[in-house]
């Protein structure tokens, strides 16, 4: 069964590596959004330190959401998705593989660039470490939840805007606890534990249920 998972994963990553600009576009979208805020609200150190965690999370939410449209779209257009639906392999597993590839290509780069963004906002080392860890736990949740929305809006007119309307409300808990962890780490790093526990719980729940829901959504969209 894992052979299928690795096969899809490898295929999606190879495809993305052939068109590297797509990956970079998401990353630079994230960097640009984060860089816009100091220009808008003023560059005072104190304000930026307070705003930093929230802005980084909101930007990560938007970046991962914008990339979601591509999750199934290409396969839908060239008919690959239809073939996938007909394979005897469990569809949820295929979806999980696609989501994993999506996260490796859009979520992980955000995590990697987060320390750089932390410098723009004068965050101290503890905050940066917390932010990277929180993004590491949080961005997979975004990809997993987003897959449901991407599957539901497959091939619809105005899919992108609609997707944001469906998915952003579900992202809110991740935003609250992800940004909360960074804020709390300013007082004491040990205080962040409940935030990480909750995010870990979200991640496990999403890992189990959202491939199933996304698979069901794909079947609805494709019938």
């Amino acid at each position: 069964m894992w052979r299928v998972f690795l096969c899809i994963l490898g295929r999606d990553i190879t495809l993305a590596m052939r068109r590297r600009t797509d990956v970079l576009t998401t990353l630079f979208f994230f960097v640009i959004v984060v860089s816009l805020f100091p220009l808008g609200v003023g560059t005072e150190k104190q304000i930026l330190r307070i705003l930093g965690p929230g802005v980084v999370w909101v930007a990560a939410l938007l970046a991962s959401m914008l990339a979601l449209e591509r999750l199934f779209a290409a396969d839908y257009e060239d008919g690959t998705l239809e073939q996938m639906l007909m394979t005897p392999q469990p569809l949820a597993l295929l979806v999980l593989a696609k989501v994993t590839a999506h996260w490796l290509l859009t979520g992980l780069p955000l995590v990697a660039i987060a320390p750089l963004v932390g410098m723009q906002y004068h965050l101290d080392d503890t905050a940066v470490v917390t932010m990277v860890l929180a993004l590491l736990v949080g961005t997979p949740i975004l990809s997993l939840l987003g897959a449901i929305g991407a599957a539901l809006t497959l091939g619809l007119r105005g899919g992108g805007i609609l997707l944001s309307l469906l998915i952003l409300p579900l992202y809110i808990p991740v935003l609250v606890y992800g940004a909360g962890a960074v804020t709390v780490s300013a007082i004491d790093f040990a205080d962040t534990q409940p935030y990480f526990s909750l995010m870990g719980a979200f991640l496990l729940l999403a890992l189990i249920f959202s491939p199933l829901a996304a698979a069901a959504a794909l079947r609805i969209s494709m019938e």
Partner: protein
Amino acid sequence: MSIFRYAAPSAFYPLAGRMIPWFAAIAAASILIGLYWGFFQTPAQLGGTNPQKEYYRIIFVHVPAAWMSMWLYLVLAVWSAVGLVFNTRLSFMMARAAAPTGAIFTFLALWTGAFWGRPSWGTYWDWDPRLTSELILFFLYIGYIALHSAIDDARRADRASALLAIVGLVMLPVIFWSINCPDPNQCAALHQRSDLSQMEPNIFWAMMIMTFGFWMYSFAAVFLRVRGIILSREADSAWVRGLVEGKA
């Protein structure tokens, strides 16, 4: 003859038509009684050292609306699940018809809450957990309606938005229990506790009657809307054509 006969839109359509006046009348009567009771038969102020004056009476609209907003989401999700499991057309239509009423009640709860918040908290809006989660509920309703309207094919629209409604159901317990803030030091929980047993009996009953009235109103409104949906969906069927020709 069983009750499942009414799962057919053509059988439910006249039944709903006969029930609407009853639900509407009961709704109007209980809302009137509830408002009268709430405005004239309850104490003029609430609380001990820092009493709430007349403005507390907005809870007679606010709390029932908030309850109905959550209840109707549950109704929406249950009809969606029934539709997905048993593949019944009417279930999806009921879910679709419940959504706008639920969204209206959510908006009403937020709106009245803002007006109550101004005199008592000194602000229209605060990021209290319950306010925030009620706002999320509003977004969920809007998302459901938007997804349903974006898909032209009725069958796909029904099933896709049903799935979305069920996914959104995970937020409902969060909203319901958001009164108990996880960390009391972090959030100044403005909805501190909800304990029906500590309420003044007159206030309690006025609120319950209002809730009942809102509930009956929901029945009437949803049935009215579902009748419209049935007609537009079944426009090509023989019984609808017969209905139109009979009236014309």
